[in-house]
């Protein structure tokens, strides 16, 4: 099954028993279909990002539909499932947690986060990286790119230095 033959409509999850539910249109027949994928071996110790990535890359299932879903989206769903299905948290609690889990706070020291959250924040940062990425396969790729930013412009002192906590 290729990208051109299906169109993902929506994806959600079910807590008991845990499953991801995917609605998509089969473009060959123009029919809407539903796929229920049981989520196994999920526990309070599961790393969300690793689990999501495995789902996405799984080769055992020939028609793996998860490869059409952005990683960040899958992580969110697994996060919800882990908290709802394994930790039995109420929806309102999960919602709050999900919001901070899925937000990149630029002032946060990422070194202080737990593994699970850190990996997800890295996925979020990776989205931007992928967006601006120029690879060897791109026509305008050059290995050695020198850019001189200092010519013809006056450098201003960075406001990051202006805090009084800074020495001098």
């Amino acid at each position, binding site marked *: 099954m290729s990208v051109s033959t299906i169109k993902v409509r929506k994806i959600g999850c079910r807590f008991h028993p845990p499953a991801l539910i995917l609605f998509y249109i089969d473009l060959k027949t123009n029919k809407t279909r539903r796929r229920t994928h049981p989520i196994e071996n999920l526990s309070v110790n599961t790393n969300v990002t690793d689990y999501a990535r495995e789902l996405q890359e799984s080769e055992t299932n020939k028609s793996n539909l998860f490869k059409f879903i952005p990683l960040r989206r899958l992580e969110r769903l697994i996060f919800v499932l882990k908290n709802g299905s394994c930790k039995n948290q109420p929806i309102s609690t999960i919602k709050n947690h999900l919001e901070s889990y899925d937000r990149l706070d630029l002032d946060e*020291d990422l070194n202080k986060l737990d593994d699970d959250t850190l990996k997800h924040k890295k996925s979020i940062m990776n989205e931007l*990286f992928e*967006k601006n*990425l*120029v690879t060897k396969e791109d026509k305008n790729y050059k*290995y050695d*790119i020198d850019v001189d930013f200092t010519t013809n412009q006056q*450098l201003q*002192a*960075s406001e990051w230095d202006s805090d009084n906590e800074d020495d001098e």
Partner: protein
Amino acid sequence: MHLTLVQTPDKTPHVTPVTDSWGNQVGKSKLLERFLVDSYKGQQHSTYALNIFKYSTKIEGKNTVVEFWDTAGQERFNNIHPSYFHQAHACIMIFDATRKITYKNLDRWYQELREARPAIPCLCAVNKIDADLNITKKNFKFPKKNDMPLYFVSAADGSNVVRLFRDAIRLAYAYKSGDSQDFIDQILRELEVREY
């Protein structure tokens, strides 16, 4: 990120500088990958919480093997084991153009480095300039007060990445060859003038 070049114990003509890198999730591994391109792949084996990458190049006509050391997340435990800096020949300190805290943390990392390696040459780089080009119009106290050249780089689009690593290798080599601090200062000044 910090990059270190480490001495080989033997007397063979090749250097084994090690660039190890630090960071606060600033994209150090991605920078290394951008520099090494194809040779980055297949080299990732994590032992002792660090990844070592080998890079062959010619310095002053001599075949040289450079080793880059990349931490595998140990910076998250707030300090880096001193053995990590052991025998390092140069260091790159990297912060993230989009996250001030990574810049603020540099002072602490730098202190730790200097306790272990008081004299190795250091370079400073700000990564992810593709996400915020305005940062290239700024100057920063940290590299200035510690006499480091500053590089504006992007692991995503490749800006100045190769330049950064080549200069680091050059400085590491000068240090390893026992060139005087004067000479290293001279190179540093020359790089500072160009400031990428």
